[in-house]
């Protein structure tokens, strides 16, 4: 039924695409001035569509991608294999592993990598420069038609831009020999045009944690007549060591330090190069945006989570992937007049192609020499999509009906099939998704929402057989919410639920996927952002969630049942006869409740406090960041599986990756 409805909606919308429309680009039922159409913030259409702006982002320390991800309400990001590997994400009851349930996008550039050798939807954000993030747009759930592949628990989009015009140079040092150099430039009068580069290196807070990375990122925005052109480009390279996991019994017996490491030679190397070109064309009948992008990703990971459980010489796995992604997107928005009523139509069409080369082989722990190759494939993965939303907003109501069609084609060349003779297989399949929402304005400040959306994730190409109809993982999500917006305070509360018909569980230690059947997730979320006095901002959110295997009435392991985050900061400019003085103070807190683990166990709760203090005198700014200010000895990730680290036992046992201890970072910044 939902497939038919969504298909019908797509067809109707495509027919309407050719219809004469009005010129105004205003979202139905929501105020939006013509002057601000380029940068105006789109009104939220659910209680959990939020924008985290720079004022909140700057309130507390943001050392890198992990901290940028923690700006997303309800999201837990853990870094279990060194500063360079994609974070493991948990959101709304989903263990998104490295990105399979959270769609990540930076200024139009997709971050999730399809059919990745290490984990589906692998989303490495370590190339993102914190100063270059203008705002974070979060759309939790899957109720919007433009949400694409991996938008199961939600979509996070980072918009780019430097805060102030001119040259910005900074150098910083911190705990464990962390050193960072940054240079950025934003020209006057060119909107969000900027160029920035950062170099970061450090020894890490324990053995096997050294890392280094360089990232360059730029955006060019130019208006030529009515058309706004935008280009985003960047290059990134990183090398990092990984401490792997530590068995809990190794620490309790004193055999290993809490911040110790098992094995050696773990880590990886990654690079990413990207370019996006876009043009926004206001027309007589509507506004159209065209985007073209290309992304090159390459990465090598070496992991050994289990010691020598499977092989006497060690269970190390070396994974390599190189991929080239090309894609294009066209977005069109217009108004339609039907009788006396005005409808808003959003249309989108996109195509994405990924050429992937990936291998996996074991290696001997002692000297790193290779063992047998277990995966050696080439993949060409193509996804074509079309979506639409049609909205009608009569008398304080807003009704939205939308749909989305995605067709996946996969061609795979498996060099190891048939005892190394090789084989090819291909697969194709569509996914239809229905989107619907109802809003009701309740007085001047309140709005109530109800929404439904089918989200999806594409499958791992290696698991498809020849001629198989590509099986998407389909999630049906619903949400009820209430929102309050005033000049000083924005607040919202929502209840959400998601049903997945054929969910799967990824086993990190073996790199395998297990299908677990029907799963149901539900929970609630509350957020508030307030600016009660000039220069002060406080943003707080709490999310509770549960995730169950419905057929066996059991909890799914690893999801985060309780997540809370507080960011508060104060910064105000004072003029003196000689120069301006801008002090800055900030404090942040993160609470993560115990997560369920296999065998009825729970992880430990996490409570972290970060603090920031700084002062800017004229063009010079000094900032002191303290992360984990209370010095908590905390476990970033906790897992239960069998390993041979320091034991003869082969039973599943508790392992963990240590979170960073108290760290400081002192940064000197000059604005020219």
């Amino acid at each position, binding site marked *: 039924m939902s497939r038919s409805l969504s298909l019908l909606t797509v067809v109707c919308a495509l027919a309407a695409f050719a219809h004469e429309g009005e010129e105004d680009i205003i979202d139905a039922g929501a105020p939006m001035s013509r002057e601000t159409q380029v940068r105006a913030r789109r009104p939220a259409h659910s209680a959990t569509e939020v924008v985290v702006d720079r004022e909140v982002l700057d309130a507390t320390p943001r050392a890198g991608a992990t901290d940028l991800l923690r700006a997303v309400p309800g999201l837990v990001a853990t870094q279990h294999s060194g500063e360079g590997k994609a974070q493991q994400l948990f959101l709304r009851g989903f263990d998104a592993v490295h990105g399979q349930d959270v769609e990540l996008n930076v200024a139009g550039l997709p971050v999730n990598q399809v059919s990745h050798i290490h984990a589906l939807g692998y989303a490495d954000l370590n190339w993102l420069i914190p100063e270059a993030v203008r705002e974070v747009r979060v759309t939790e759930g899957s109720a919007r038609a433009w949400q694409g592949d991996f938008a199961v628990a939600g979509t996070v989009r980072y918009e780019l831009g430097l805060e102030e015009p001119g040259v910005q140079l900074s150098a910083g040092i911190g705990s464990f020999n962390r050193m960072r150099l940054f240079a950025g430039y934003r020209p006057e009068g060119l909107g969000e045009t900027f160029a920035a580069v950062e170099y970061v290196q450090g020894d890490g807070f324990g053995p096997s944690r050294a890392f280094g990375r360089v990232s360059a990122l730029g955006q060019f925005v130019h208006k030529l007549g009515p058309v706004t052109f935008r280009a985003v480009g960047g290059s990134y390279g990183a090398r990092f060591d990984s401490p792997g996991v530590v068995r809990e019994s190794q620490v309790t017996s004193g055999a290993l330090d809490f911040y110790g490491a098992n094995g050696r030679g773990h880590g990886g190397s990654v690079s990413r190069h990207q370019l996006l070109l876009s043009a926004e064309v206001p027309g007589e009948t509507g506004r159209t945006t065209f985007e073209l992008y290309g992304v090159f990703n390459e990465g090598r990971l070496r992991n050994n989570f289990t010691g020598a459980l499977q092989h006497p010489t060690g269970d190390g796995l070396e994974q390599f992937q190189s991929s080239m992604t090309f894609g294009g997107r066209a977005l069109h928005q217009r108004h339609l007049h039907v009788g006396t009523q005005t409808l808003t139509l959003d249309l989108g069409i996109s195509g994405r192609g990924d050429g992937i080369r990936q291998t996996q082989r074991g290696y001997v722990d002692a000297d790193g020499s290779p063992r047998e190759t277990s995966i050696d494939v080439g993949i060409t993965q193509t996804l074509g999509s079309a979506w639409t939303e049609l909205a009608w907003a009569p008398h304080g109501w807003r009704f939205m009906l939308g749909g989305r069609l995605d067709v996946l084609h996969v061609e795979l060349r498996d060099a190891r099939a048939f005892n190394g003779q090789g084989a090819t297989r291909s697969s194709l399949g569509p996914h239809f998704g229905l989107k619907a929402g109802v809003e009701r304005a309740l007085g001047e400040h309140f709005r109530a929402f109800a929404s439904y959306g089918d989200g999806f994730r594409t499958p791992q190409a290696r698991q498809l057989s020849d001629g198989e109809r590509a099986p998407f993982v389909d999630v049906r999500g619903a949400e009820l919410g209430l929102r309050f917006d005033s000049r000083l305070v924005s607040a919202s509360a929502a209840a959400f639920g998601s049903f997945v018909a054929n969910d799967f569980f990824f086993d990190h230690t073996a790199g395998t996927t297990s299908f677990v059947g029907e799963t149901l997730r539900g929970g609630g979320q509350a957020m508030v952002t307030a600016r009660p006095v000039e220069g002060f901002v406080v943003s707080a959110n709490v999310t509770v969630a549960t995730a169950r295997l419905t057929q066996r009435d059991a909890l799914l392991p690893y999801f985060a*049942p309780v997540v809370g985050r507080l960011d508060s900061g104060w910064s105000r400019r004072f003029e003196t006869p000689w120069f301006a003085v801008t002090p800055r103070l900030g404090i942040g807190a993160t609470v993560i409740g115990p997560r369920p683990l296999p*065998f*009825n*166990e729970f992880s430990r*709760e996490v409570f972290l406090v970060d603090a920031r203090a700084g002062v800017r005198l004229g063009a010079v700014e000094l900032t002191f960041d303290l992360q984990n200010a209370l010095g908590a000895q905390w476990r970033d990730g906790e897992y239960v599986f069998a390993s041979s680290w320091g034991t003869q*036992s082969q*039973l599943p046992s508790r392992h963990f990756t240590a979170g960073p201890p108290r760290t400081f970072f002192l940064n000197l910044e000059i604005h020219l």
Partner: protein
Amino acid sequence: MSRLIVLSCLSLLACGGTERTRTTFPVQVSARSSGLVTDSGWSVTLTKATAHLASVRFFSGKAQLARATPWWHRALISNAYAHPGHYAAGEALGEVLATLDADLLAGPTEWGVADGVTGAYGSLQLGFAEGGLEVEGTATKGADTVAFSTRFTPPAPLEGAAFSHEMTTSPGRVDVQFDLSVVFSRIDFALVGSGAKPLDTMSPAFNGYARGIEDVSAYVTTWSAQ
């Protein structure tokens, strides 16, 4: 206070648990040692039978020979004994990692309490310590009597012995019974080489003894609910 709030929320959200759980259960070793007659017709009387054991592990993988077939079935179709490689141990579900010198003639011997997890058990792996299975006794066939003693230690843990059981947290006991009739079945005491006490390790009789110990059908493992 914060811990109290978090735990209160959890009590509402996380009731039910993550399906499986940890469990413990006692393991004992026993033997069937009376009425031993080899395939070549020797009646064996043991005066000593000591198993030097190092570990027992329980796995999810099904055994190489999961169940005995009825006699009439064997008469028509021979059992196919899978060679190593067809058995996949799967996930380790329980284990006792303690050495034990079990006097098999003295009745059941407590090995220890196994740490384990709930789930479908399919097989076990038996690890012998130095000394392996040490036996002493006499074998009689007609007017011939042979006094013997020998020991054999399998070079690697024996994999794939059958133990099919859905393990829960219900109390019970695992009994690993050495079926010595299987251990001795292949021995022909007429072929003891240079001597029977101790048994010539190059002799066909010793070879039959070693093969008998490595035959995982010699270990009959059962669960007794309590």
